């Protein structure tokens, strides 16, 4: 409900600016103001109406069906990217929680990895396909995109999981110690469950980053089939069909929300037996 209200508010702000802003743009105190012509800022209702019209002149199916197809393709890549990011992220966090030298040695690299701009990295990684093969399996271009998505999403997961693994109360750690539990048993029975409340928000961040990673990689490398390419090609049609690109933007937003929703349902499932005040604030 709140989401719908927020959406309506955004549309209102858009239309309000369009009504009062200068048609050919301008500047206030040196800040540029965007143009408000129909080509630069189409009406929100035109964007929505465009969803029902065919992708190309003469086509029969409305554009939202094509967009849904692209979004589904991108969604699968983003989901795989998130899963890969989670596996790598959780693995690294466990390693760092186990060996403090691993934490000291790895954490700077983990942080540094996030300062590398994805657009610079994407063409490199995509160019591996056809060149690099892992045990006879050649990396397809779509998998390179997944790697890039994982590269973005693993970061919050490492940080969140590491913090979570360290959040087990000292008394509980001592209790496990008094049972002569091994490090592994302590990890499985205590540290991991204790880490979950920290891991869920990290996974939520990771999910959105994974979607961004896939779309940006698609755009910067021109890989076809996904929503990123649709944003690119629809955008090129902006002169004659300014509302078309928004169909792709809506598709990207929707798939991000679906992936986010998936993580939220995972949250609800794993936290169903936890005290509610704790489950509620994540």
């Amino acid at each position, binding site marked *: 409900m709140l989401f719908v209200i927020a959406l309506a508010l955004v549309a209102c702000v858009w239309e309000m600016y369009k009504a009062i802003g200068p048609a050919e743009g301008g500047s206030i105190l040196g800040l540029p103001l965007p143009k408000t012509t129909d080509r630069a800022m189409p009406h929100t209702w035109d964007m929505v109406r465009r969803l029902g019209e065919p992708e190309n002149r003469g086509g029969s199916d409305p554009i939202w069906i094509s967009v849904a197809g692209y979004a589904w393709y991108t969604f699968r890549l983003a989901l795989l990217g998130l899963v890969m990011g989670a596996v790598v992220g959780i693995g690294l966090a466990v390693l760092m929680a186990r060996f403090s030298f691993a934490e000291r040695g790895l954490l700077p690299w983990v942080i540094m990895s996030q300062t590398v701009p994805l657009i610079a990295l994407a063409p490199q990684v995509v160019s591996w396909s056809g060149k690099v093969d892992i045990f006879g399996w050649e990396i397809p271009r779509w998998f390179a995109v997944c790697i890039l998505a994982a590269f973005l999403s693993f970061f919050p997961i490492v940080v969140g999981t590491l913090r979570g693994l360290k959040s087990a109360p000292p*008394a509980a750690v001592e*209790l496990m110690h*008094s049972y002569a539990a091994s490090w592994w048993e302590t990890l499985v*029975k205590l540290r991991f*469950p204790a880490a979950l409340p920290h891991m869920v928000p990290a996974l939520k961040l990771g999910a959105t980053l994974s979607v961004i990673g896939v779309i940006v990689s698609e755009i910067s490398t021109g890989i076809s089939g996904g929503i990123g390419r649709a944003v690119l090609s629809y955008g090129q049609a902006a002169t004659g069909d300014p509302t078309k690109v928004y169909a792709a933007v809506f598709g990207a937003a929707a798939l991000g929300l679906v992936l986010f929703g998936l993580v939220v349902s995972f949250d609800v499932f794993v936290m169903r037996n*936890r005290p509610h005040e704790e489950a509620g604030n994540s």
Partner: protein
Amino acid sequence: MSAVVVNHVSKVFNEGRTNQVDALVDIELAVEPGEFVSLIGPSGCGKSTLLRLVADLIHPTSGDVLVNGKSAAQARADQDYGMAFQQSGLFEWRTVERNIELPLELKGWDKAKRRARAEEMLALVKLTEFGRHMPWQLSGGMQQRVAIARAFAAHPRLLLMDEPFGALDEMTREHMQSELLQICEATGTTVVFVTHSIPEAVYLSDRVVVMSPRPGRIVDVIDVGLGDDRTDDTREDDRFFASITEVREALRGIEQAEILGGVEDR
């Protein structure tokens, strides 16, 4: 064979540094099987440290600790003792019965055997119908009972308790003390019990070990002559008050020495 032997044990924290603390100096203590011994003293007297040494959670700087005739490390590896702390320390993601099963899981028991023992333990602490509840759905006193059930689950011959009732209100506390005594009586468990409540120490114990801080040491061991059959009436018995007075005076002796010592320091 004594259940616990503490042999000339000293413990120094931060040895050689400016913040060096002599937590315990030359402690000698033997606890016989089936005996209930309380450690009491002002904060900083090392009573918790002594308990943790027996549990092998920390290691003595000098001297050695024997539990059931074995080294403390071996006794911990064999899970010869159960432990309970002031915080119940229940895992909030496990049901009450699965919390009680935790030490049994780590011992490698199969599921059916674990479940049967958990039910037995729940009956012991009178929480039979709460096995499927989550810990946070229970009151503080009930959570502490679950923690005690967990400590008893593997039927240890020795129980180490660090102010287990410290966070409970007075009424729950007295009730829990009586229950603990009944369980120990029924199972023949040896208990080493850390507390800073004089009536609690006297009501529960066969012997009360009075400790003093800076450096931590044993200043007195008081035999409580209340016999094995203790009920709520015991709390109004003259012998109960006599023992309380005895412990209190031993503790007061420490306080006075502390004040005088403080003056000398300056």
